[in-house]
C-alpha cells in the first residue's frame, strides 16, 4: 500500500484466441498507464477499444497474456490487492432475490466487514444514495436508476480507497447524475482514487482531472484534462467584413460561422490569426472579439480516434 500510484500497468496485453479457428484478437495491446493516488481518472475510447478488458484485468476477471497490473503496488491477481477496490460493473446483474439492504449486506460481508459494522454502514449508504425508503424492497422491482445507485452504494460500503466505476451514471436521470457526481466529489475530497470508464464525454470532462483514450487496444492519448483541452486555436469575431475578404479568410480558417451580422473565424495558430488581423485592419474592418479557444474533450476524442 506504499506505492505512489493507485493503478500501475506495464505493457498490459490481452490476446483472445478463438477456440476453433485459432484466430487472435488483441483486446489490449501493451497498455502502460499510471493513475496517481487521489486522482479522478477517466478512461475513454470507442466501442471495442479494450476499455472493459482493461478494467477486468485490474479486477483479475481477465488474466493478462503479457505485462503486469498493480493496485497500490500489489499484483492485481492477488485477492488481497482487491481489498481496497470498490467496483461498479457496467451491465451489472444483481441477484433479484435480494432486498436493497440484503444485497449490500452480502457484498459487504464478502469485503470482510463484520455484522455490526455492516448493519450500521448499510443504513448510511442507503441514505447516501437516496434509497433508504426502499431498503426492504426486492431489487427485482427497482428501476434502472435505482439499481445504479444501489450498485454505487455497494461499491462504497467498505470504504474503498479506489473506486473503479464502469459507466456509473448509466440509466440515471439528470438529477441522479448530479447526485452521483456530488457523492464522487465527496470521495475525492477524502483522497479516494476514482477510475471512471465512461462513454459520456461531457461527464468525464466535468469529473476527471486526467484521462486516457484507448483506441484499438492501445493508449492513443493520455494526460491531464487541462493540457489536453487547452491552447488549440483562436476565435476571431468580425463585424460585417467585405465578402471578398471573408472568402479569403475562410480559406485560412479551420471553420467559419455567420450570426447576426458577425462572422466567427476559427484559426488554428497565432500566426494565422495575426495575418488575418493585418488584412482586416488594412481594410478598416471592425474587430468584435478575439479570444484563445480550448477544445472540448469531445473534439480531442474525435481527433484522436480518427487519426
Amino acid at each position: 500500500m506504499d506505492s505512489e500510484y493507485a493503478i500501475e500497468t506495464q505493457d498490459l496485453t490481452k490476446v483472445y484466441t478463438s477456440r476453433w479457428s485459432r484466430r487472435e484478437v488483441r483486446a489490449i495491446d501493451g497498455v502502460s498507464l499510471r493513475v496517481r493516488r487521489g486522482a479522478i481518472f477517466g478512461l475513454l475510447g470507442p466501442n471495442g477499444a479494450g476499455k472493459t478488458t482493461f478494467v477486468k484485468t485490474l479486477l483479475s476477471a481477465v488474466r493478462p497474456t503479457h505485462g503486469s497490473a498493480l493496485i497500490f503496488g500489489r499484483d492485481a491477481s492477488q485477492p488481497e490487492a482487491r481489498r481496497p477496490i470498490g467496483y461498479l460493473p457496467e451491465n451489472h446483474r444483481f441477484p433479484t432475490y435480494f432486498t436493497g439492504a440484503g444485497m449490500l449486506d452480502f457484498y459487504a460481508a464478502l469485503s470482510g466487514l463484520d455484522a455490526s459494522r455492516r448493519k450500521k454502514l448499510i443504513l448510511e449508504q442507503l441514505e447516501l444514495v437516496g434509497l433508504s425508503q426502499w431498503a426492504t424492497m426486492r431489487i427485482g422491482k427497482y428501476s434502472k436508476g435505482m439499481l445504479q445507485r444501489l450498485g454505487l452504494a455497494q461499491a462504497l460500503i467498505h470504504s474503498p480507497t479506489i473506486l473503479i466505476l464502469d459507466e456509473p451514471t448509466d440509466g440515471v436521470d439528470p438529477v441522479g447524475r448530479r447526485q452521483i457526481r456530488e457523492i464522487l466529489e465527496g470521495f475525492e475530497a477524502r483522497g479516494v482514487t476514482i477510475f471512471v470508464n465512461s462513454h459520456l464525454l461531457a461527464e468525464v470532462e466535468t469529473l476527471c482531472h486526467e484521462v486516457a483514450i484507448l483506441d484499438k487496444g492501445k493508449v492513443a492519448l493520455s494526460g491531464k484534462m487541462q493540457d489536453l483541452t487547452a491552447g488549440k486555436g483562436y476565435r476571431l469575431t468580425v463585424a460585417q467584413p467585405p465578402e471578398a475578404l471573408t472568402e479569403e479568410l475562410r480559406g485560412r480558417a479551420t471553420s467559419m460561422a455567420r450570426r447576426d451580422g458577425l462572422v466567427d473565424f476559427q484559426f488554428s495558430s497565432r500566426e494565422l490569426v495575426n495575418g488575418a488581423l493585418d488584412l482586416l485592419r488594412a481594410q478598416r474592418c471592425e474587430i468584435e472579439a478575439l479570444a484563445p479557444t480550448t477544445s472540448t474533450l469531445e473534439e480531442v476524442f474525435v481527433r484522436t480516434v480518427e487519426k
Partner: protein
Amino acid sequence: MVTLALISDTFREALTRKIFWGLFALSTLMILFFLFLLQIDIVEGGVATVGRFGGSVRTMQAAQVVRGVYAGVATFLYTFGMFLAVFASSGLIPSVLEPGRIELLLSKPLSRTHILLGRYAGNVLVVLLNSAYLVLGVWIILGVKTGIWSPIFLIAIATTTFIFAVLLTVVVLIGVLFDSAALSTMITVALMIISPILAQTSLMMRLLSSEWSRDVWRLLYYAFPKVWELGRITLEGIQYGTFVGFMPIWSSALFGMVMLGAALAVFARRDF
C-alpha cells in the same frame, strides 16, 4: 464470515427456485402420508393381528414394516429426489457466472477457489437439509407410533447427501466449462442412468468376448461414481443391517474429488 455469506447466498438463490420447493413439498407430502397412514384402522388392525401371535412376533412384524417403509423412503430420496436435486442445482453454477455478476464477485478480496467451493457447499447444504427433513420426519413418526427407533435409517441422510455431493461435482465442472444448465443436467443424469448398467460387472465379464472390452468395462466401472451400489449399500444396511464394502464409497469420492479439482482448475484460469 465470507464462506458463510457465499453459502447463504447459494441457499437463498436455491429457495427462489420452484423445483427446490417442489422437492420440499414432496418430502412434506410423504411425511404427512405416513402420519395419516399410521392413524388409520388398516395399519392399526394389521399390527393388532400380528399381536395375537405374541409380543415378540408382533415386534418382529412391526420392525419389518418399519424397515420396509424406511427402504421405500430411501429409494424415493435416492431416485426421484436425486433427479430433482440435480435438475434444481444445475442452474446454480451458470447463474453465478453470468456477465455483470461474476465480475463483481471477482472484484472482492476472495480467491476463485473460495467462491466456487462456497457455492458448492451451499448447494450440498440445501440437499442435506431436505434429506434430513424427510428422513428425520419419517423416522420420528414411525418411532413414536411403533416404538421402534432404528438409527440405521439415518444413514440415508449421509448416503443421499454423499452421492449428491459427488454428482454435483459433475454439475459444477460442466457449468464452469460451458455455462449450460441443460448440459450439466444431461451429463449428470446420464451418469446416474449408466450406473446400474456398469454395476453388472460380473455378468459382463462373462458376456464380453475380448479382454480389451472387459478392461474398458472395468475401467468405466471403477472410474464412474457408483450411484447404484451406494443405493444398494443404503437399502441393505437399512433392511438387513449388512454392509457390502467401502469400494463404492472411496471410488465415488475419488471421482468427485477429481471432478471438483478439474472444475476449480478451469474456473481459476477462465476469463470473464
